[in-house]
């Protein structure tokens, strides 16, 4: 439970962070809230040689109303996302999901950017970002910026399309003001990680994100397609696990996960289709 030795550098600005990353090379890692990275390091599943701490970059912690969308700085803590009135009004699903992450301690330390960048299929916020069709703003070496749609971001287990030396700066979330939404988080023990989770938003079209149903955060594309093709909610929900390869672990077999996905997607769709909250 003691991590391997590493060098620690604190960045005072995004530019400095980019510089430190370049300096640190292949084995450098950004440290935000540390609530995903440090557990990995303690288990020695990660052993970065340099940690570049961006936890104090205040200017990456914000929520702004950007007209069609809201912009959330990558270093915004879960607790801020949970309680911010702009998020509550224009992306209520996201606010709710942020409030479901771990326990209060975790929510006061962990950041939305860290959660997205970590790319953990068991995390809640990536599924919400997928359901909402969010876009991730990234800067790279030399200040080169690019936007990556959530649907293209998650590549493999703990693997994203972020390149070494890049920093996720902002999560842009299309407004879903007044839309129906639902988040179903299934766990056996209070405040635990989801064994399976479903985030859904119905805003004309329907977006559905799945937690822990494969090696990455996933969109329930088969369900979305069925709905688009005019299927009933029940019928569409029956496609929830279609084409997926849910993980087997001590908490659930793949069959049980598939069952849970079907039940939870149906419930999520029903809740999201009921009169908006």
């Amino acid at each position: 439970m003691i991590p391997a030795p590493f060098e620690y550098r604190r960045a005072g600005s995004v530019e400095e962070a980019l510089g430190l990353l370049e300096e640190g090379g292949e084995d450098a890692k950004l440290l935000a809230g540390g609530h995903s990275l440090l557990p990995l390091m303690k288990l020695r599943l990660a052993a970065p040689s340099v940690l570049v701490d961006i936890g104090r970059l205040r200017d990456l912690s914000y929520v702004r109303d950007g007209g069609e969308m809201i912009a959330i700085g990558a270093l915004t803590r879960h607790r801020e996302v949970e309680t911010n009135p702009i998020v509550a009004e224009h992306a209520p699903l996201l606010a709710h999901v942020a409030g479901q992450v771990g326990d209060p301690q975790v929510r006061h330390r962990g950041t939305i950017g860290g959660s997205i960048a970590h790319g953990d299929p068991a995390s809640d916020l990536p599924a919400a970002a997928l359901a909402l069709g969010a876009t991730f703003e990234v800067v790279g070496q030399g200040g080169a910026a690019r936007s990556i749609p959530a649907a293209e971001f998650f590549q493999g287990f703990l693997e994203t399309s972020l390149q070494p030396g890049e920093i996720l700066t902002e999560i842009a979330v299309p407004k879903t003001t007044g839309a129906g939404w639902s988040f179903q988080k299934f766990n056996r023990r209070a405040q635990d990680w989801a064994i399976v989770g479903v985030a859904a938003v119905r805003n004309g079209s329907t977006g559905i994100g799945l937690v822990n149903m494969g090696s990455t955060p996933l969109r329930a594309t088969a369900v979305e397609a069925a709905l688009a093709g005019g299927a009933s909610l029940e019928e569409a929900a029956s496609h929830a696990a279609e084409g997926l390869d849910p993980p087997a672990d001590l908490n659930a077999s793949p069959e049980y996960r598939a069952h849970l996905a079907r039940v939870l997607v149906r419930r999520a769709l029903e809740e999201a289709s009921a009169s908006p909250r």
Partner: protein
Amino acid sequence: MSVLDRPRSAPAGAGIGVSAPRPDGVPKVRGQFLFSSDLWAEGMLWGHVLRSPVPAARIRRIDVAPALCIDGVRAVVTAADLPGAATFGLEVADQPVFASDVVRYVGEPLAAVAADHPETARRAAGAIVVDYEPIEPLCDPEMALRAPAIHPDGNVFRHLRIEHGEAFPQAAVVVEGTYEVGMQDQAFLGPESGLAVPGEDGGVDLYIATQWLHVDRDQVARCLGLPCDKVRLHLAGVGGAFGAREDVSIQVHLCLLALTTGRPVKIVLGREDSFFAHVHRHPARIWLRHHADPEGRLLRVEGRVVLDGGAYASSSNAVISNATAFATGPYRVPSATVEGWVVRTNNPPCGAMRGFGAVQACFAYEAQMDRLARALAIDPVELRLRNVLRPGDRLITGQRIDGTAPVAEVVRAAANAPLPPGGPADLPAIALPGGAGRAADVGRVRRGVGFAVGYKNLMYSEGFDDSSEARVRLELVGTAPVATVTCAAAEVGQGFVTLARQIVAEELGVEDTVLAPPSTATVGSAGSTSASRQTWMSGGAVAEACRAAARQLLLRARAGNRVAADAGLPPDLDAAATSGDPSGGVSDAHALGALGVAALAELLGAGPVEASATFHHRPTQPLDSAGQGDAHVSFAFAAHRAVVDVDVDLGLVKVVQVATAQDVGRVLNPLQVLGQVEGGIAQGVGLAVMEEIVLDRGLVRNPSFTDYLLPTALDMPEVTVAALVEQPEPGAPFGAKGVGEPPTISSTPAVVAAIRAATGLELDRVPVRPADIALAPRPAQTSTPARADTPARPAAPARPSEPARPDAGPAGPAGRAMVPAREDLLGLPGIELHVHLEGSFTPERVAELARAAGEPDVDRRVRSAFAAGDLADLLTALDWWCGLVRTEEQATSQAEGFARFLASSGVVYAEVTVNPTHWGGLPRRALIDALAAGFERATTPGAPGALGSASPTAPPAEACDCRLVVSLRRDQDEGDIRRVLDELGSRRPARVVALGVDGDERSAAARRRVLAEAFAEAAHIGLGRTAHAGESSGPEGVLAALDDLGVTRIDHGVRAVEDPSVLSRLRDQRVTLDVCPTSNARLLYGTLDRHPLAALDAAGLALSIGTDDPLIFGVDLPEELSRAARLAAWDLPRLRRCQHDALDAAFCDDATRSSLSRRLAPWDTSGRKSEG
């Protein structure tokens, strides 16, 4: 009402009965309490233990050189470095301190390293090279009984057999089940840790978190080859124990490293190592069979308990003794045979955990009591009350309960506690299963209530004298009297530190008490902090030491320079002091206490007094070879009633409330009792729904609190203490019983009973996992939407006389249980006892056989045969077509086809009647053997036979296990009947399980003697007995079958309804009627509406449903069941009882019965159908 606001009989001051606060409470909450992991010494080294990653291997070589090369490493020790004994153990020293030639479990220590830094020590341990030659691990406890020994001491740690009472009269009802308990962990929060400091005398001081200093000391000294006084153990702050600190873990390693390096050495295990370093609760597999009379009074219990002890003995021998002796629960059981085994495997060693064998037993016997209640339709609480132990009763070990036993009281109090108001629909979303995740759908949440009661011994048993010593010193500090209590009782959270002070205050009136640090260097053994014993044993020792000190003071008062009056002593006290009567101790102490502090200070002015006492409980005896003996000191009882909400689609359980009542003898500290009650329930709930060490070939898969699920505060139910029953226990100091373990024992079965009530599932294993509920086969769900993954079953076989479908249409009034339709019953594992092979012919098959036999006019004869209008006609038709079977292969394929037909309709077990007199074309024995061969063939995969009704899209049906009932014909020749019995007696043909009789019952009277003799002979040769009666004969026919033939079931028997006295006979003797509604409608009553099924049901009879001649009547079992349901307005749970009745009445062996029972288990829906 909580225990805290219970009015109390005015306890005064800081003495017995008040909620004195724990002295360590606030420091623990504030993080100021020093746990063993906080120990520190100047210049200390850090130790790390290398553990085996494999469950079983021979060790070819251990090379420690690479570790010694690492900078900062000060010592590496292995078995070769042990100066003393190589092994340790609580009861049997069979466990190596370090494995040297063989490893027997994952986590077994191989070497220990001391280094300057914990990380260096860890790395060095990793550098040690161990060359293993793997051995196939023995992980299955049942296998261990047969497998070659994996240890020189063998694989069976202990086997006991309890034989109690006389043979029992015929029981009205028998229920049985096999139950499993997973491996629970004590899950204390403070990992194993300690600090060893080498002494100048060549000895060592070890500061350690443990439950029993002295027994650790003895084992450590033995392994170090030191005399006991050179090894001094001191209690360090204990972060929870629950049994896991009763065994030696790192003690020897620490001391050996300290002695080797000459420096203090500290070890703190990480969480993962901790899971590998301590024993766990024994996983159990328990089979029980209960026999009871019609009122539900237990007549006899049979049982078999197998515990997995893991690789080494630990306290297995005592745990199995409890699990076996308490296997029948706190009930009067006049006759019992219970066998217990605890075996060695390559799984982690198992030993003590709160409840100690009683927990596993209680899960099994309470499930049985519920089963019995259901079988008899008696309220479960009422059933328990009819059986509870009372003072003076004998246990199955022959021991009489001499003390208190308020079992009925705790049962009643827990049962009568107020239920939580409202239902799931009244709760906020966060209070539903799954909590804040809001995954529950309140429309799919079912509430269930379950009840359980349990008991356990207090103190050590079977002849062990676990005495406790305490010393009390009274002196003046300034002007105030202060008591110092020296006792080695380990405070592990139970509150001895509070009670010791309360006892001193009670006895001596002294409120300022200092507890000396527990240590082997200053006082004798206090025994273990386990078996709910410290309050009784060490509390008793402190009380006696107080009394001895009081006596000294009073003698001082008498002998001293002041007369009693001057000292303010009352005259009677003076007299007591003068008498010097040692038995006056109690009143001395009380009198002294009454004196007040001022007089005490006065007496102490002359100097301190000090007194010691050793407290022994009354002697006990080991169990003898029949498991009999006064093995236990005392018993404590508790009852729990649990209320749960279950989201049946997700499988999530929320325990809403646990109400409890406990037998405590006397409440010494209400707050601490409540702490024990709540903590015990938390562990009980944990075992019920989440806590389990998952093993994979001996490897703990979840050695962390991320993966080993412990209930959090949010997962805990509301705890309602309905009563703490105070009946002072004779022989117990202050009349108080131990309170630590009982809360854990029956809370688990109560929660599972509640889940069963909510889901209708059998759930015979804990913990109950969500998938056990959500994925349990649930045939009724086929009618709920969004289950496209459930393939549709084929329609009912369309046969000549397809009757009108009962209009069981979708739903009755909302909320009312709906009558299940055939579709709802597909997938049900069917059990059918009344079906004839003679009725297995389709018109096509008869035509085919007739043509093969060269019969004329085939089509017309087939048509008229199948149009048989009454029973006599039918019997004639049967004779014809059965007679067409002329070759063994024809018979075999007939049987095979029929078995496949049964399987395709979901029947998994059938007792098929064959009456050889109909089958004129083949000799009897050849016929029976050929039929058995056909049944055998049908158990292998293959195309549906000639009778197969399954459509090509049908999923492959599970095979049907068909047995044969050889039936006599009522008018069969006497000599022929004898030959049948001779044949069955000389060589039992395969698959034959019973003798039956059928044919025209009107000829019954003349055949009484002949048939009676035949049936007596059948019983003699071990065949089951059944008879057709009450179909073409009236109630008198039923009576004759009972009286003359001794049958345990009756085929049809429906006309018993005409005579209430016959109905009561059937009910009281628990004879099962195998009823075939469609057949009766066709041949007896004309229409289904006139069938008396509802009346038979109302009479309380055991009823199974059969098809009689399915291919003739065009029904299959699901169809027949659905018709029965419509007839008698039965819901699914009631239908399910028919299947259980059938199973109970089946003539199969126990193994088959219990495996069928397990298969039936998931089949229930408890009203879920109304959701549609």
